[in-house]
């Protein structure tokens, strides 16, 4: 039956190609959603991990990096550096600002850094070296058509864009980077802070431990010795942010994935229905020749599974293409369309959908009258 199925598919190339294309498009869509989820988690993870350091010190009780407020007292840095095993600490400040231009508003997370924790992937220009210089994520640059040398106005304060970075966006929000010289000017000269006392000067400290020291042990010591601070390993903080992302995006994306699976099953069901209808006469002849419903169902199943199997690589290719398109036009989103786990899962789902879809015309096959073979 498999052989007949394959030959039948080859005998109707346009229909077969259309079917494979449509199933591939559904798989691509599923892979894009999976990739969107995986990409969002990866962005959250890299936002923490790209800051470097062996331990991250935050306000006591704060264990997330993004979408939270952490304020460390100024003296905390000296206190942390006094802890045994700490080699150096690098301050980081995170502040959310809204960028508005041409009627379009975009929230930005500005990361202020000193000698570590800046952007690690600058695709044009350079790191900010002087005051009033800023590095922006390429998503922001692209959204507003701005680049190196252009002016970026935040809260009535003009920055010069010194560089554009990649892999610096998370939670649909582009990051921007400036140094502390700029921060002080920004606080004093802009409207961003009505009272300097209310604004955080240090949010986090990225801590390097001495050679041979255990970062987990150093983190415990910091938390114990500096009461205003909490200390956590970067990968733990990254995991916390990913967990937050999972709470935020998981239910919605899973709902959309669920809808996609239903579409997939319906579409494959429809294809198989149409295939059975188109071959009703052939199936009638087969029934007359002595093939029973089980044989015919096997044939339809073989066709559905073959279609899915052929659609999988095409779907992956489409997903890669679409992910590249999204990256080109809206780099604030990262779509990791070829995560092995998602690929395996989607491949498996494609087969399951094919099996479910192949059951759609079961009733038609069962009711098929072998006597139709006598009709001209």
């Amino acid at each position, binding site marked *: *039956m498999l052989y*007949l199925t394959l*030959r*039948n598919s*080859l*005998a109707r190339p346009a229909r077969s190609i259309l079917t494979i294309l449509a199933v591939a498009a559904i798989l691509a869509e599923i892979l894009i959603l999976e990739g969107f989820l995986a990409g969002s988690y990866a962005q959250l993870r890299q936002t923490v991990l790209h800051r470097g350091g062996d331990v991250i010190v935050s306000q006591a009780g704060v264990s997330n990096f993004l979408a939270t407020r952490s304020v460390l007292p100024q003296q905390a840095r000296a206190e942390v550096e006094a802890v045994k095993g700490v080699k150096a600490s690098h301050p980081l400040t995170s502040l959310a600002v809204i960028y508005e231009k041409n009627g379009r508003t975009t929230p930005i997370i500005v990361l202020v850094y000193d000698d570590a924790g800046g952007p690690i992937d600058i695709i044009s220009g350079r790191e900010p070296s002087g005051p009033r210089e800023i590095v922006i994520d390429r998503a922001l640059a692209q959204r507003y058509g701005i680049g190196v040398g252009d002016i970026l106005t935040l809260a009535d304060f003009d920055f010069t864009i010194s560089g554009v970075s990649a892999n610096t966006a998370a939670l649909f929000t582009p990051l921007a980077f400036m140094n502390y010289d700029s921060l002080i000017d920004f606080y004093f000269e802009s409207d961003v802070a009505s009272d300097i006392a209310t604004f955080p000067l240090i949010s986090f400290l990225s801590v390097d431990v001495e050679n041979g020291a255990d970062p987990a042990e150093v983190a415990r010591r910091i938390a114990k010795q500096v009461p205003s601070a909490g200390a956590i390993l970067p990968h733990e903080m990254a995991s916390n942010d990913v967990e937050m992302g999972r709470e935020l995006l998981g239910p919605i994306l899973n709902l959309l994935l669920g809808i996609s699976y239903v579409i997939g099953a319906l579409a494959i069901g429809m294809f198989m229905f149409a295939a059975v209808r188109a071959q009703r*006469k*052939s199936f009638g*002849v087969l*029934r*007359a*020749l*002595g*093939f*029973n*419903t*089980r*044989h015919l169902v096997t044939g339809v199943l073989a066709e559905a599974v073959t279609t899915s199997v052929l659609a999988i690589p095409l779907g992956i290719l489409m997903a890669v293409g679409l992910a590249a398109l999204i990256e080109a036009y809206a780099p604030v989103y990262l779509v990791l369309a070829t995560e092995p786990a998602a690929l395996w899962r989607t491949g498996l789902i494609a087969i399951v959908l094919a099996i479910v879809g192949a059951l759609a015309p079961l009733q038609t096959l069962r009711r098929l*009258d*072998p*006597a139709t*073979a*006598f*009709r*001209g």
Partner: protein
Amino acid sequence: MTTPIVQASKVVKTFGAGRTLVRAVDGVSLEVNAGEMVTITGPSGSGKTTLVSMLGALLRPTQGAIVIDGIDIASLSEAGLSALRARTVGFVFQSFNLLESLTVRENILFPAHLAPGGMPAAAPHADDLLERLGLGKRSKALPRTLSGGEKQRVAIARALINKPKLIIADEPTGNLDSKSGQEVLMILHDIARDQGRAILLVTHDRRVEEVADRILWLEDGTLRDRKQESHDWTNDPVCNMRIDSWASLIFSDHEGVRYNFCSDKCRDRFTADPSKYLRETQLAEQSEERKP
């Protein structure tokens, strides 16, 4: 005494219910033995297809019994019927019904999938059939490139691949030109005679009368046996169409003589004014007699 391959006793098949009930086959009994070629003929809508569908284990009768190769089909499930067909019955259809995507050889071999040993075991037989039916050079061709006669020979080869005891052919010459039709009938005849298979043929083709062992006439669901030689040709007095008075059911008696008609319309015209048509008939007969 030989055991019949197919045995039908008082078979009734009805469709619908209540006021829409149709008795497609009404109390038919028949036996077909090995090596016998039996033709069923009759007007359109007489129930021929329904009858052969039952005799080929495609349909179960509403009443009566059909025994194929010793098995009462009423006792079989759908799957059992399929298995019986695969093993015992070969079909040849008017519209060939070849699988368009498969080559000639693949089409012939396809039912062997259901036989013990499968396609590999049947391959030599398929090649033999290809040669015997003159299809050796067309074995890799696709059905759409074949002539009607070739298609029907492929269908016959396919029907024979599992060496069935019974072959049912439904109007096998219906879509063929006269030469190909003759060829097909002779092939079927040879299969019955040389291979001892029972052949049940539904056809309107008059040439079959020359080769068939028995001819059965089915009309309004009932079957009448008829000897091959028992024709009684006459002419419709209205339209002058040649009619077998043995088989005709439309007739009218006038002055002690029975006249047969091709249709109710001709009969009505005749009964309205018999003398008009009888005069014409006499004139025609006289002119016929005057010819040297």
